């Protein structure tokens, strides 16, 4: 036992170094394929500004999954939060943008959490039901038939600075540091992870389960809230989703999270998230440059990507996998 434990312990830096080298090589390769277009600053800017709000959603997933929840309604929440961000932004300016998105996101995620925690309905199924409700509300707000719809215009350009570089990058950097410490180095972070690991043990060690769960709800809410106003600031406009299509919104963050989870044994998951989202959007970017149609074959690549990483990541996995 001792020898195997030492073997894996011996060079913890090896994997990250190899990982970064491979990554750099791949990026260079992309650059060559795209005849130098890929690494141009304007192109990188497109990638980076695009990955920021999915990043926050993926971080939200880190906390959600850590305590065993999968919330399928986050897409619906982001749509509603973006609406709020838009309405209040146009009314009250920048503070409206931030508070509108943040408060709506927090509130809705908090409601979700109350439902998950107290009804004990498996979260992803409850999430589907909630997504239906949120979608219906969004339709009502945007396409009201009898009254004038509440959300009729896009967010004014002057209030969209937060979603553009360099502000969005500041959000990302601050977010990374704060979330890293929150997840790894605070009591609440450890308690949250213990709930995901073994709820029974956590409970018997005197960790207040409901309090911790509500903390998860709050943290995820803040993260999703930030994602809401960043999304609205980035895109300016949000389309209504019906018939559960809002779930499509979370596929990319989910893919980021799943990728991050696969390499988390070697690199901390919170740091993995921005790296993985960069990889993901870089691949999308290069595919677009190469003329692969978006929305069809690019999605196919995304799916294949997750499966391949999943297979590699679980190569040595033992025990029960559902």
């Amino acid at each position, binding site marked *: 036992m001792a020898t195997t434990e030492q073997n894996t312990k011996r060079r913890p830096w090896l994997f990250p170094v190899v990982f970064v080298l491979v990554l750099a090589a791949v990026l260079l390769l992309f650059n060559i394929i795209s005849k130098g277009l890929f690494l141009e600053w304007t192109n990188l800017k497109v990638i980076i500004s695009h990955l920021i709000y999915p990043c926050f959603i993926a971080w939200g997933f880190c906390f959600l999954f850590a305590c065993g929840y*999968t919330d399928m309604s986050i897409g619906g929440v982001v749509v509603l939060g973006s609406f709020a961000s838009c309405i209040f932004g146009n009314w009250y300016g920048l503070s409206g943008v931030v508070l509108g998105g943040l408060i709506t996101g927090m509130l809705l995620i908090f409601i979700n959490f109350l*439902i998950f925690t107290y*009804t*004990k*309905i*498996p979260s992803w*199924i*409850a999430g*589907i*039901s*909630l*997504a*239906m*409700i949120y*979608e*219906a*509300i969004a*339709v*009502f707000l945007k396409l009201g038939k009898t009254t004038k719809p509440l959300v009729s215009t896009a967010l004014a350009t002057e209030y969209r600075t937060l979603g553009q570089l360099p502000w969005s990058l500041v959000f990302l950097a601050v977010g990374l540091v704060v979330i890293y410490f929150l997840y790894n180095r605070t009591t609440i972070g450890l308690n949250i992870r213990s709930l995901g690991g073994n709820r029974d043990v956590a409970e018997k060690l005197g960790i207040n389960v409901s309090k911790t769960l509500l903390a998860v709800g709050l943290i995820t809410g803040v993260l999703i809230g930030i994602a809401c106003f960043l999304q609205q600031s980035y895109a300016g406009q949000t389309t209504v989703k*019906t*018939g*559960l*299509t809002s*779930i499509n919104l979370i*596929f990319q963050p*989910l*893919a980021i999270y*799943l990728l991050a989870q696969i390499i988390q044994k070697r690199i901390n998951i919170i740091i993995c998230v921005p790296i993985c989202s960069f990889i993901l959007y870089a691949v999308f970017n290069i595919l677009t440059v190469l003329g692969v*149609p978006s*929305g*069809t*074959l*690019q*999605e*196919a*690549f*995304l*799916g*294949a*990507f*997750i*499966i391949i990483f*999943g*297979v590699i990541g*679980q*190569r040595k*996995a033992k025990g*029960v*996998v*559902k």
Partner: protein
Amino acid sequence: MKRIKVSDIVPFAAFIVLFVFFTIVSKGKMVSAYSLKMLLEQSILTIITACGVLFVVAQGSIDLSVGVNVALSGVVGMHIATVTGQGWLMIPCSMVIGLIVGLFNGVIVSKCHVPSFTLSIAMLIGVRGVVNYIQTIIGIEYIPESMLFVTTSTFRIIAFIVIALIVLFVFEFTRVGRYSQAIGENETTARFVGIPVDKMKILVFAIAGLMAGIGAVFSMATVGGTTMTMGAFLEMKVAMAIFFGGVLVTGGSSARFYKVILGSLSITVIVYGLSLIGMSDSQISESVEGGLLLIILFITILTNRHRASRKKAAEAEE
């Protein structure tokens, strides 16, 4: 004799309450022969697909790729039939493609230990991309004239009943179903007893894929051909139907055939009932559907709580 548990009654009760409620508010329209037929026809696709997923859920896994599988196998199966001019090929080709996708899922889950949730979400994203790509090239296709008999409701209902009976037999009265339940109850136990766990996993995903292929035929039979949104969010509907019927996510012995039927019918009753009373407006019907789902799931879980509390009491006695 076997005692009837409260949790077994909930799916029945939910169905009856919903049915009676909509019968009353629709002033009896719900019980007309036409309505009942519509109810069944609208449930067929969900039930057929859910029948396959039931095996997967019984093992405690989940298959969220059946929706796109319906689309892929339908689109490709139909295209083969159109290109070759052999209309009958549509059915076997759809089934074979569904089966292949299912086998792929099964092999990845059992041999590569990728969690089924992750895998099937990836398939959901990826295969949908492929289907969209294919459809941008070949467009929508219609069922060839030689095969139009599949669109008649007589054919669909008879075929549905035959298939449902086969699934009922396989799930409830053969080792396939029993072993799947055992794997859901405790996979380690199943393996230690000597159940071929890996083979069973591949088998159930293959069954789910095959049923999706059959579902594709039903889906095309209902609208007369392929559509751009074929099978969209069917996997969510199927999952809802199964859990609505009172099956627990952990599967095991809570997975029963009748629950799938009841769950699917209940969901159709909500959708159809709302349209009967003139509330088919998508926003209202969607939110009511969502809300009702939450409530009924809550009751199901509540009545299953004794499972947890009983365990606690047993632990305490040790």
